[in-house]
């Protein structure tokens, strides 16, 4: 372009704001006007005229700058930047560049899917919704113990009084939940299914309260609540489908529920599990129960015109009177005298059924920071994909130059590139949304983590409109990032340069400083994340690959509980414990009489299968000696015959004997991993549980005092069923540290292990036998022990697979970007290399000129990533972890390996472009 030619600055600016083909002529016109007339005006007039021209030029461009498609168009209008052709072209590009489509698509699918899933789960956690009609008016009523600041159970008599007196809360309902054994019609021996189900015993008002109608049959009515009425049950849709095979004739049929026979009167719609995660509903018969019995949950709906505040005020008054009346008759205290005043010990309060979570400002900041980090991650991935898209754009430079020459504006070309990116991102978003939806449904179905099966009904597994909109927003954000940089670069240069370069077989597009920063950042992030990723994946795979040190396939494992309704007399925790112990004795006697059964034992679980960590402090055999060293382990309560029945070898000391039950020295057996913590001779060492929150929750200590001392009497071989502990890279600690405590039945949770040659065959016989022994016995998930171990490791397997995929994707994306960088670098320097080769330059010289920049970027990225990694490792590993010596050992190996891998990956990505560069002939390079 010609220089300004002496034109005043504003006129030159005005010309720059016009389309390229109009600039010179308009500048000439403006200069002509300036010289001929304006220059004669006073200085202010000249100034004003001149500085108005840029604005006028901009407005003229906006209003008249676009060219109509052809003569004869009826009305001129601003055409949108996209057309159907762009979308078609976008799909064609996907097919034409399959590697980019695959690498970019998978990367975008991953981040968008993660975003959708994270948004859904966060929303479920922070802002749950019942999903019932006017669900925000459903409230729960509860007692609050002022002294202990915990909930206090509501008695039936109080509920009856509230139902009569409260006016601000209507449709008052009560519920009591228990686990029961449900046996389908027919004979148990005939192979009919039985299952442990969660049953809510509710007042009939529960159903009108939810405003949910039955899917089939009817719901409970007041007639069903009366004493002596026939026993009936309403089934949940899932129970009917999964346990009763969706039997169309189920209404009116009889089922065995614990010790009762109940008639099915209705089926609720899919997803209904009010008030939490119930499978079925039976009537709560107030007349048949002890009015002082407790353990009920009370719900209601705010009456028309009532507010939460008015309901609270009313219950505060009514609840106090009722509690005092009930307490007077039962002899309990409900108030305490403090000097002249009388303070209530128990408060009655009304809360929303789903009380909005109280989010502190710090939490909000945390959420905002998390969102920021996630968007940064999305931007990083999108930028990597943008690198690939830019390389693709560089290969199409001639096409873009010709389109520009034919009259396509910069906006039009940018619009086309945006649509092409949008096609890729939208497909990725669709797949990501689908995969995330499937993953959440799979997870919430209990297939990975059985505890998710009992999630309350308002924890939905289906994405709602909000999640879809967030995904669309993420896709738009991603498409903008992916398209923006390539579009700006591709349309920012001179058309004539582009045409010249493309006719010479080269490219005028260059990766500039921004791209160098991107590549360095990308390599650095890969170097930073890979060692952690590799370590994480290694640990999870090791858990998968580790085999049990005992023949797990020869054991049948199941949980044992008792149906409270089958207990005669008061259902106190102690009474239930005694019942459970008695029924275990009866069941184990029966089992040991079964053919093929060798022995029966029990425990709270196997390593890695159950239990949380507890804190311990170490002592020694010397009395009153306490080391300040604290450690952690998983405590397990076991039968005294446990090691013998499970075939676990005692490597030092002894196993338990019946005399250890209740022994004053608190004998324990520890596993080999824990024994290593205690030095060469762990026998006689003492450990105890300090007063930490975890220990208080487990009942191992009180809030202020440590628990009793335990003396190590034996060391058992590691079971080989658990992952490593939290020691990073600690090859010595292959298994969690364990403490085994002798116990008499029952323990909680109560898991029974039956040694038998064919556990899979024993499982159905076990159910039949349990039903014969006592229908009140609850058998929970009987299955061969090896299957149970595999199931408990499923989460680790999924994590290992996902982690492996993530690491692979990280390396793939990084190498693809480097490949793209090299491909464009070669394309851009075709002519230069041809000339160099023509005048006799050797291959090494050409390659070093070409790859110097890539090597520099690889080196800089590796260096930055290594420094960051070492910094993070110092923080992570020295904060309560191993010392600096082990740190060096841990850091140096993986880091060197990853740095080497990155250099290899980067150089491998350069091989194909390098070969292409060396094949360029001088004739090819110089043709023009």
């Amino acid at each position, binding site marked *: 372009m010609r220089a300004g030619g002496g034109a005043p600055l504003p006129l030159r600016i005005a010309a720059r704001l*016009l389309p390229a083909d*109009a600039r010179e002529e*308009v500048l000439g*016109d403006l200069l*002509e006007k300036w010289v001929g007339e304006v220059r004669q005006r006073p200085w202010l007039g000249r100034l004003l005229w001149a500085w108005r021209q840029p604005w*006028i030029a901009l407005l003229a461009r906006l*209003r*008249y700058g676009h*060219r109509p498609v052809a003569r004869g168009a*009826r009305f001129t209008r601003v055409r949108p930047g996209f057309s159907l052709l762009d979308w078609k072209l976008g799909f064609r590009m996907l097919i034409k560049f399959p590697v980019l489509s695959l690498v970019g698509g998978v990367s975008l699918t991953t981040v968008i899917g993660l975003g959708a899933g994270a948004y859904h789960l966060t929303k479920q956690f922070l802002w749950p919704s019942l999903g019932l009609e006017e669900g925000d008016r459903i409230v729960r009523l509860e007692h609050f113990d002022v002294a202990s600041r915990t909930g206090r159970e509501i008695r039936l008599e109080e509920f009856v009084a509230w139902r009569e007196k409260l006016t601000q809360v209507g449709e008052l309902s009560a519920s009591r939940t228990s686990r029961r054994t449900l046996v389908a019609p027919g004979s148990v021996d005939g192979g009919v299914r039985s299952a442990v189900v969660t049953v809510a015993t509710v007042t009939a008002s529960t159903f009108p309260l939810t405003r949910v109608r039955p899917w089939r049959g009817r719901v409970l009515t007041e007639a069903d609540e009366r004493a002596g009425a026939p026993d009936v049950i309403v089934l949940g849709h899932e129970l009917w489908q999964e346990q009763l095979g969706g039997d169309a004739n189920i209404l009116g049929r009889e089922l065995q529920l614990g010790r009762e026979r109940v008639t099915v009167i209705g089926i609720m719609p899919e997803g209904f599990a009010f008030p939490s995660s119930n499978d079925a509903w039976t009537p709560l018969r107030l007349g048949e129960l002890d009015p002082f019995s407790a353990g009920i949950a009370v719900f209601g709906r705010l009456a028309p015109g009532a507010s939460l505040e008015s309901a609270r005020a009313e219950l505060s008054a009514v609840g106090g009177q009722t509690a005092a009346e009930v307490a007077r008759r039962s002899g309990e205290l409900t108030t305490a005298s403090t000097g002249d005043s009388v303070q209530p010990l128990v408060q009655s309060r009304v809360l929303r059924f789903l009380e909005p979570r109280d989010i502190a400002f710090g939490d909000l900041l945390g959420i905002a920071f998390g969102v920021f980090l996630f968007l940064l991650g999305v931007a990083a991935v999108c930028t990597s994909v943008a690198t690939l898209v830019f390389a693709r754009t560089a290969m199409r430079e001639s096409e873009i130059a010709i389109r520009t020459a034919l009259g396509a504006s910069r906006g039009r070309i940018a619009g086309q590139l945006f649509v092409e990116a949008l096609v890729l991102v939208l497909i990725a978003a669709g797949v990501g949304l689908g995969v995330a939806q499937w993953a959440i449904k799979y997870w919430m179905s209990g297939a990975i983590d059985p505890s998710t099966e009992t999630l309350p009904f308002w924890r939905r597994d289906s994405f709602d409109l909000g999640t879809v909109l967030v995904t669309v927003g993420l896709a738009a954000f991603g498409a903008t990032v992916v398209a923006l940089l390539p579009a700006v670069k591709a349309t920012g240069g001179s058309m004539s340069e582009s045409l010249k370069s493309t006719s010479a077989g080269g490219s005028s597009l260059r990766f500039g400083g921004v791209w160098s920063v991107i590549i360095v950042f990308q390599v650095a992030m890969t170097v930073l994340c890979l060692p952690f990723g590799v370590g994480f994946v290694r640990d999870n795979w090791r858990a998968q690959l580790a085999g049990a040190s005992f023949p797990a396939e020869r054991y049948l494992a199941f949980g044992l509980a008792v149906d409270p309704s089958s207990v005669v007399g008061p259902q106190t925790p102690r009474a239930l414990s005694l019942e459970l112990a008695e029924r275990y004795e009866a069941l184990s006697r029966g089992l040991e009489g079964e053919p093929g059964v060798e022995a029966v034992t029990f425990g709270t679980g196997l390593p890695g299968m159950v239990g949380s960590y507890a804190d311990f402090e170490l002592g020694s055999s010397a009395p009153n000696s306490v080391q300040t060293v604290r450690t952690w382990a998983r405590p397990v309560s076991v039968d005294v015959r446990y090691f013998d029945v499970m075939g676990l070898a005692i490597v030092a000391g002894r196993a338990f004997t019946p005399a250890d039950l209740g022994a004053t020295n608190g004998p324990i057996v520890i596993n080999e991993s824990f024994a290593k913590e205690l030095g060469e001779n762990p026998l006689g060492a003492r450990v105890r549980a300090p007063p930490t929150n975890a220990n208080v929750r487990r009942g191992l200590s009180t809030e202020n005092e440590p628990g009793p001392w335990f003396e190590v009497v034996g060391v058992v071989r590691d079971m080989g069923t658990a992952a490593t502990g939290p020691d990073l890279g600690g090859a010595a600690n292959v298994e969690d540290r364990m403490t085994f405590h002798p116990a008499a039945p029952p323990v909680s949770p109560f898991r029974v292990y039956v040694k038998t040659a064919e556990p899979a065959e024993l499982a159905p016989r076990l159910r039949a036998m349990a039903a014969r022994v006592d229908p009140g016995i609850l058998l929970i998930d009987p299955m061969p022990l090896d299957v149970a171990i595999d199931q408990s490791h499923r989460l680790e397997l999924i994590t290992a697979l996902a982690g492996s995929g993530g690491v692979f994707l990280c390396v793939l994306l990084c190498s693809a970007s480097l490949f793209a960088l090299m491909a464009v670098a070669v394309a851009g320097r075709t002519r230069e290399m041809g000339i160099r080769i023509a005048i006799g330059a050797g291959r090494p010289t050409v390659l070093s000129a070409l790859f110097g920049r890539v090597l520099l970027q690889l080196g800089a990225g590796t260096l930055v990533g290594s420094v960051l990694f070492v910094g993070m490792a110092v923080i992570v590993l020295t904060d309560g972890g191993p010392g600096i010596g082990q740190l060096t050992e841990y850091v140096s190996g993986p880091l060197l390996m990853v740095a080497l891998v990155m250099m290899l990956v980067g150089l491998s990505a350069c091989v194909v472009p390098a070969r292409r560069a060396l094949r360029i002939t001088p004739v090819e390079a110089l043709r023009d």
Partner: protein
Amino acid sequence: MARERFGELEERVILSLLQLGGESHAVPVAERLTRVTGREVSPATAFMVMRRLEAQGFLTSSVGEPDPVRGGRPRRTYRVVKKAILPILRESRREMLALWEGLQPMLDKP
């Protein structure tokens, strides 16, 4: 489908061009419009309008010799394609006259 009418500024530019003998470059057109309407029109605006009319086939253009007054830049002269514009101008004038019909006495009143 044939175009029915020009935009207001387009029509004024075309009429100015016709008044200037059917051909001119942007500066005289802009100056004439400024003088007649009393509202300043920039040569840049006049140029962009004529450029667009050319793209639609209502004008043709040619580039002259470099002019020192214009910093050595050539002048682009636009010419009216009468066959294309006259039917639209006729229709536009007819419409305007029809709209004004009978209103002259009202305008003549003091």
